[in-house]
C-alpha cells in the first residue's frame, strides 16, 4: 500500500517537475545519477556502519524506501536546483535552507509512518545530512555547468 502511494506521489511530482523544469535532459541524467550514488553511499553508511537508523524490515517499507531514495529524493533535489538556478544570490541561500527544512520534515514523516526507525538519530544529524546532500548536488550542478563548458 505504501509502495503504491509513493509511486503515485512520484508521478504527481514528475508531472509538476516537467512543467517547472528548465534544465536539459543531458544535465538531468548525470545530476540524477550523482544524487542517487552520493545519497546511496551516505544513507547506507548511516544504516550499516553507524547504525543510527534501522533499515526497513518489511517488503512494503523496503520498496517504499527504495522509491524514495532513487526516485523521489533526486527529483526533489532537482526541484531545489531549478529554484536555485532561477533566483538571485540572497535567495539562493534561502533555497538551500528551505530545501534542507523540507527534506528534514519529509524524513520525519517517513519515520512517523514506520518506513525507517531512529535508533541514535536526531534532528542535528538530519540537518547535517540533508544540507550536505543538497550542497554537494549543487556543487556537482556547477561542475557540470562550468567545468564541462570549459573543457
Amino acid at each position: 500500500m505504501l509502495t503504491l502511494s509513493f509511486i503515485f506521489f512520484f508521478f504527481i511530482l514528475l508531472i509538476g517537475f516537467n512543467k517547472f523544469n528548465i534544465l536539459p535532459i543531458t544535465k538531468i541524467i548525470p545530476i540524477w545519477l550523482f544524487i542517487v550514488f552520493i545519497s546511496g553511499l551516505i544513507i547506507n553508511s548511516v544504516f550499516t556502519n553507524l547504525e543510527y537508523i534501522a533499515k526497513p524490515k518489511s517488503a512494503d517499507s523496503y520498496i517504499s524506501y527504495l522509491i524514495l531514495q532513487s526516485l523521489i529524493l533526486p527529483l526533489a533535489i532537482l526541484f531545489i536546483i531549478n529554484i536555485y538556478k532561477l533566483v538571485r544570490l540572497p535567495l539562493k541561500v534561502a533555497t538551500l535552507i528551505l530545501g534542507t527544512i523540507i527534506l528534514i520534515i519529509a524524513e520525519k514523516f517517513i519515520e512517523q509512518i514506520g518506513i525507517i526507525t531512529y535508533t541514535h538519530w536526531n534532528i542535528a544529524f538530519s540537518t547535517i545530512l540533508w544540507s550536505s546532500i543538497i550542497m554537494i548536488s549543487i556543487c556537482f550542478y556547477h561542475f557540470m555547468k562550468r567545468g564541462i563548458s570549459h573543457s
Partner: protein
Amino acid sequence: MIFLVIAFFMLPKIFPTEMTISILLYFAVLGLATDVLIGVDYPFNFYQIMDDSKLELFDVFIYGVNYSIYGYFFSFLIYKWMIRRGKLLLIIIYWSGQTTLIEWVSVKFHVFSYHNGWYIGYSIIAYLLVFTISAFVVKVFIHCWKSENKL
C-alpha cells in the same frame, strides 16, 4: 584498478564529457544498488564482500572506479561498433560470461562469499539481465545526447 584507469585514459574519447560522466555514474549506481539489494544484509543477503557487510572506503573506490570503468568499456563497444540487435545479443552474452569469470576468480580468492543458496549459475542469469538492461540504458543515453546534437 590501476590497469582499468590506464585503459580508460588510453581509449579514444568518443562520448561528450557529460555522457561519459553519466555512463560512469550509471554503472557505479548499478554496482551499489545490486550490493545493497541482493548482497549484504536485508532483504536477501546472497553474498558478502570481503569479511564485513559494512561500507568501507575501498568499496567506494570499487563502485566509483572499477564498476564504472568496466561498464564504460561495455558502453564503448556498443557505441563504437554501432551494434545492432543480433550482435548486441552476442556482446551481452560475451560480457556476462566475462564478468561471471571475474566473479568466479574473486570467489576463489575469497573476495566474495555466497550465502543462502546463491551459486555462480544465478550470477550468469543476473549478469545477462543486468547487461541487457544496461545496453538499453546506454542506447537511451545515446538517443538523448543525439537529440540535443551533442553526439
